[in-house]
């Protein structure tokens, strides 16, 4: 059960709403993931965390696909349903 209120996008600042639009484009989905919205509940944390994520998950020496696989295996080992 979720123990926090997960903000709707319209509750966020215009700057953060813009970031959410970029997130949808990044994942090619038509909604903003809860994690993105939760992180932006504390913008001083969520904004730099989002920038770090975008930087780390981009193609580099490892492809974005390989990085998503790493993310999946970390989630599996941590038994994280989300």
């Amino acid at each position, binding site marked *: 059960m979720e123990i926090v209120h997960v903000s709707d996008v319209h509750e966020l600042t215009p700057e953060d709403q813009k970031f959410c639009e970029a997130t949808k484009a990044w994942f090619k989905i038509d909604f903003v993931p809860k994690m993105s919205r939760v992180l932006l509940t504390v913008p001083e944390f969520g904004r730099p965390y989002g920038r770090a994520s975008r930087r780390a998950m981009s193609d580099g020496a490892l492809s974005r696909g390989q990085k998503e696989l790493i993310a999946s295996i970390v989630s599996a080992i*941590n038994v994280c349903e989300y």
Partner: protein
Amino acid sequence: MAGVTHALNTVADGLRLPLEFSTSSRHPVAPLLDPPTDDREMQVLLDDIRGFYAVEHVPAVFRWMARDRGFLQSYWEATREAFTDHTLDRLTKEILAFAASMTAKSDYGVDFHLREAHRLGLTDQGLTEAVEVVQLFNTVTKIADTLGLQPDFPARPRGPSLG
């Protein structure tokens, strides 16, 4: 691959088997026996393991399993298959095994799979990127669990059987 990695790490760390490639003060909690030299099938099996990993000595976790040749034979066959090039290449699988080991805090697994990944071509930049992703997703999985976040995607109907 994730399951085999986790299980081998569990055995190796649980028995405190010495690390393969890094200096370690670990001592096994039970003796690591030398496999019988007059067992031809065992020698073929051990040669295959050494060849697969390009090592001089059979890794301790497999030496442990050599106490029971039948078990080692079958488990090694499964392990080899899991780490062989298929849709995912072997390097990617070793990077994933390294990430799984790091997340599970397995000293044996981190040491073993990092060496394998390097041997198969992982660069220092690649290692940096892999660790960044491990760090990011150890952050968000913890946040998600703490807050009880439910998945964004609804449960999907059962897919085709893996068998």
